[in-house]
Every structure is written in C-alpha cells, then in structure tokens.
C-alpha cells in the first residue's frame, strides 16, 4: 500500500477502494461477455447451440468448428475456409504498415526538423486527410487504381491503405519529433551527418514508443478494414474481413453458428495479440506528446 500511495494523487479509504474495484470489475465482465460467448459457443456442437443456453459451458468440447472455419468452410463458391484470406490479409497488412509508418516518420522528421516555407499548410492538409470519411474517396480511388492498373490486386490495397494511413502516421511522428531537441540535429549536422544519416542514426533509435503506437494503430486499422477490401479486392486478394462477411452472411445452407464464432475470433486474433503484447506502449506513447518531460 505504501508503494501505491506514492503514485496516486489521493489516498482513499478501503471501502471507497473496494467500491471502485467492484464497479470496474462489473464493467470488465460486461465488456468481456461477448468474447466469452463467442469462445464458448465456438467450442460447442451445432446441436448444443440450438438448445439455447448461450452462456453455458460446452458439454462436449469440440475443435471441429475451428478446423471448419480455418480450412473447410464454404466461402463464396469455394470450400476453402478462411485460411487463404488470412494470408491475403497478412500480405496486405505487413507492407502497408511498414511503408506507411516509414513514410510517416520521414514526414514528421521533415515537418519538424527541416521546415520549409508553407510546412504548416502541408501539415494542415495531411491532418485534414484524417477526417475524410472512407466513402468519399471510394470512387476517385477506384479511378486511380484503374489508371495504375492495380485494381483488384493486393498491391492496390496496400497503396490505398498507405495513402489513407499517411495522415495519421504523419500526425503521430510530427508531434513526437516536435518535442525532439533540434540542437541534436544541429550537432549532427556539424558532425557531418546528412539528411538520412541523421534520421537513421539520431532520430530512429529514439523513436521506439511512437513506432509502436503507429504500428498498432495502422495494423488494427488496416486489418479491420472492410470497406476498401470489399470495394477494391478481387476474389484472390480479398482480406479476412470480407471473407468473414461472406462466411457469416451466406444465404444458403445451414447457419453454422459455431463455425461463425470461430471464424470471427480468428479474424480478430492478430489485433488482439498485438494489443496484448504492446498495449502498454500504446497508452504510454499516446501520452508522450501530451505532456513535455
């Protein structure tokens, strides 16, 4: 208790503390309930689900729905399961995240340390791009992808996500580098380092927290994107989210809820893992720009 009192602004009584924790616990349980329902039902047989009790533990554990969802379920016209689409998503997300993060970092570097006439306007416009709804860019983007001959390809989707993510990644890096001492850049300039050398040797090694924030942000956004995937992808480049939709909203055959639950969890798993592994950096990184020092 003595250790905790150092960090907390006020020391509260035991009763107040118990009350706070029990309320928090109730909320936590409430928010975890859907995940619980999905997990429990994905391990039941379809017959058991039909009996009605959604919250009950499975009487007979079965991994069959998971195997179905991953490799055998009917998606569109092919019984491929979600596996090929999972790979599609990965092939799309990884380059999209890396490229947009790197470009955002360079943008932030230029906008703070190599300021040019009108840099504020450029940043303002990039910031503005964060607030443009997805739907507005659909048709122009389709045109551009057509002109570039990237329509229906994974590369096309990577481009879309890089362009759309650039506003956010630039914002993150610009605010982070804004607090980075300019004297360091000057010292390195006198030491003889050039534009990219300063970036690689001085800035990047100090950018850990903001890189984590940007990667999480971009990864979850790109992975969870449905609209661009549904609009711009062909059958062979459709991401996980679109495939999941095709699996769940298929209008033929029996609704296999257990398979749907398993598929939904599979689709959410990568973002979940990313959050669990590096979530604390996310919170810390988001706060980093807020308060100096």
């Amino acid at each position: 208790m003595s250790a905790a009192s150092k960090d907390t602004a006020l020391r509260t009584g035991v009763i107040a503390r118990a009350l706070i924790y029990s309320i928090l616990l109730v909320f936590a349980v409430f928010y975890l309930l859907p995940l619980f329902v999905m997990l429990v039902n994905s391990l039941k047989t379809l017959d058991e689900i039909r009996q009605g009790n959604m919250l009950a533990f499975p009487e007979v554990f079965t991994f069959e729905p998971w195997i179905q969802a991953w490799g055998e379920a009917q998606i569109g016209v092919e019984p491929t399961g979600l596996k090929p689409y999972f790979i599609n998503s990965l092939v799309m997300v990884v380059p999209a995240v890396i490229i947009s993060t790197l470009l955002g970092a360079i943008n932030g570097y230029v906008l703070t340390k190599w300021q040019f006439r009108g840099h504020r306007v450029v940043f303002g416009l990039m910031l503005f791009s964060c607030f443009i709804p997805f739907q507005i860019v659909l048709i122009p983007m389709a045109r551009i992808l057509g002109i570039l001959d990237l329509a229906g390809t994974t590369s096309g989707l990577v481009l879309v996500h890089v362009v759309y993510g650039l506003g956010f990644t630039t914002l993150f890096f610009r605010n982070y580098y804004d607090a980075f001492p300019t004297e360091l850049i000057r010292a390195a300039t006198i030491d003889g380092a050039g534009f990219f050398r300063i970036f690689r040797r001085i800035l990047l090694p100090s950018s850990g927290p903001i890189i984590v924030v940007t990667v999480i942000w971009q990864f979850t956004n790109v992975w969870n994107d449905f609209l661009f995937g549904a609009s711009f992808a062909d059958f062979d480049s459709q991401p996980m989210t679109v495939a999941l939709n095709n699996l769940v909203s298929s209008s033929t055959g029996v609704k296999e809820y257990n398979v749907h639950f398993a598929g939904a969890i599979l689709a959410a798993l990568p973002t979940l893992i990313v959050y669990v592994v590096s979530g604390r950096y996310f919170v810390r990184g988001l706060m980093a720009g807020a308060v100096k020092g």
Partner: protein
Amino acid sequence: MAFLEINRLHKQYGSVEVLKGVDIAIEEGGFLVLVGPSGCGKSTLLNTIAGLESISSGEISIDGKVVNDLHPSKRDIAMVFQSYALYPSMSVGENIAFGLEMRGVSKADREKAIQGVAGMLQIEHLLKRRPGQLSGGQRQRVAMGRALVRDPKLFLFDEPLSNLDAKLRVDMRTEIKRLHQKLGTTIVYVTHDQIEAMTLATQIAVLKDGILQQVGSPDEVYSKPANMFVADFMGSPTMNLIEARIENGGGSLSVEIPQRDRSLSLPVPQPPTSLQSYSGRSVVLGIRPEDITDLDGADPKAEHIAHANCSVEVVEPTGADTFVVTQLGGKEVTGRMRSANGLSVGADVPFAFNMGKIHFFDPATELRIA
C-alpha cells in the same frame, strides 16, 4: 588578416533585422566572448558562424577562407550546445567519435582519439555509459570532448555553463580557461553572464539589439565602457549612473550632483579636453561601486579621492564586503565598504569617491565622453 573575421554581417528574419551590421575580428588562439542580454542576437551570430543559419548579407571568413556558403560540416568548426545535445541512443564513446565516424576515420584511429580526449577531460570511466546516466557536469565534459576530438580550427560555445548549478559552473569555467590556455585553440563563446565574459575572454564583444556596442579586452570594456549600456551591463553590482552637471570654476572642472537639501560638488581631476565643452551642461556621471568606499577602504594608490557625507539607506552585508545604498541625484547609488562597522540605516557617514576612475556619458547619445 585575422583568423576569424566577420564583416558587415546582417541577418534578417522576414522584416525583423536581428543582426545589424556586425564587425568582429579575432586572432588565432583568441577567446572571443559574445555577451549581451537575451534577445540581443548573440546566439544568432554564433549560429551564423557555425553555418546553422544563413546570413542576409556580409562576410564571414575563417583562417582566410570565406565560409558564407559552406556547409557547417565543411567549416572545420566544433560546437558545444547549451543543452549539450548528446545523442541519447549512443554511448559516451560513440558520441565523441560520431563526427570522426562521419568523416570516415578508421575505427582504430577513432578509439585512439577517444582515449586521448577522455584522458584529458577525465571521463575514461564514463565511455560505455549513455548520456542519460550522466550528471550535468559529466554531460558538459562529454560535450566538450566531442568538440575537442575533431581538433577543429574554431570552437563555438553556446552558453555551455548555463544549465549547471552555481558551484559546478565556476569549476567548469576554470576548466575551460585551462583547456584554452593548454591547447591554444580559437574560441567563440556566447554567454549572458558578464562574469563568465570577464574571466574567460581575451576579447569581449557586447551586443544589444543586434548592434555591436563595444569590442575590446575585458579590461577595456570594464574600465572604458563605450556607452551607458556597456557600463551598466558589465560589472556586478552595476555601475552607478547619476545625472549631474559639469561646472567650470576658474580653470578646474567640477561635477555637481543636485540633491534635495544640498547639492554635492566633486572636483574632476585632470579633466580631458572632451569634457571642457560640456561645462555648464548636464552629463551622466558613472562610478563603479568599488570606487565609492569608506575612508579606510579607499584605494591607497588612488591620487584623487573626494570625500562627501551621505546618508545610509540600505546595508547589504555579503561577507567579504558590505554594499551600502545611498541617494545621490535622486538615484540609488551603491558603494562598497570594507565592513559593516558603524553603518546603520539613516546614519550620515563619510564616503570616499575615487575621482580617478569616474566616467562621463552624454545623456542624449549615451556615448562615453571621458
């Protein structure tokens, strides 16, 4: 041709002129201190010498070579920054060697250079640490090591001691002076601390609002300030500047300080000719606190001591000396007494004025008359 020459240097940010035609020159091995209040343009001047900021017009040359359009890394300079600017992700050793690495010096030579500098600054035991693990004084040494290791033609220091606590600042000041004497390097040093300027410099340049007020040796700047600003800026406590009149009393001049009840008249010994034309006109009399003393404390070698009684208003003992504030000509005037004996507020005590060390300024132009 001087080692570092700055001719008619102008620097503008949009319509704001920060440096308005600065001319400075120092010889090789000189220690030039740029001093002035904040916002006077001294850091900007240093940055233009470094090449970190472009100049609007004028010329800067180092060792006979005009460097106006030369990239900072090609000017053969090293700079120590106020925040030290140590690269946080590198060890102390890597920090020191970074400039050499960028210039393609081999690893073996770099190691040798690091060891040499580390030995000189006594930071060998810190080489493996990160800047974040160092104290302020240690960081300061590393920053100097990084500058020294490249053996440049010119060292630039941008308020390097202002982030240290008072005691460490005095120690590092001595250390910098020792290094300069040992290595004989040419240094340009920016500070707002006039004591640093006095102790370190071979040449002091006083700046105000982008205009050079005076350049000279510390002694010149201190004992012959070019104008009222320099007189006021250099020295602590500051010089007393009193409004007075020059009276011509039959061949000898005297300075008369108007007082409420009795006006105080002090003789001016060996008045310079420039002062003659001011007889009957008002001037500003400048006299440093150490030249207003108690009778015993007066400089025994001084030839012209004038005595006058003044009433004590404030007594400020500092240990070695006691500063006494009184009123002259409607202004507070500080004198420096040997001891606080017999000094009580309101008492009328005799003061000794060292008239050999007084200054006169024109009240309109603020320039030095004599």
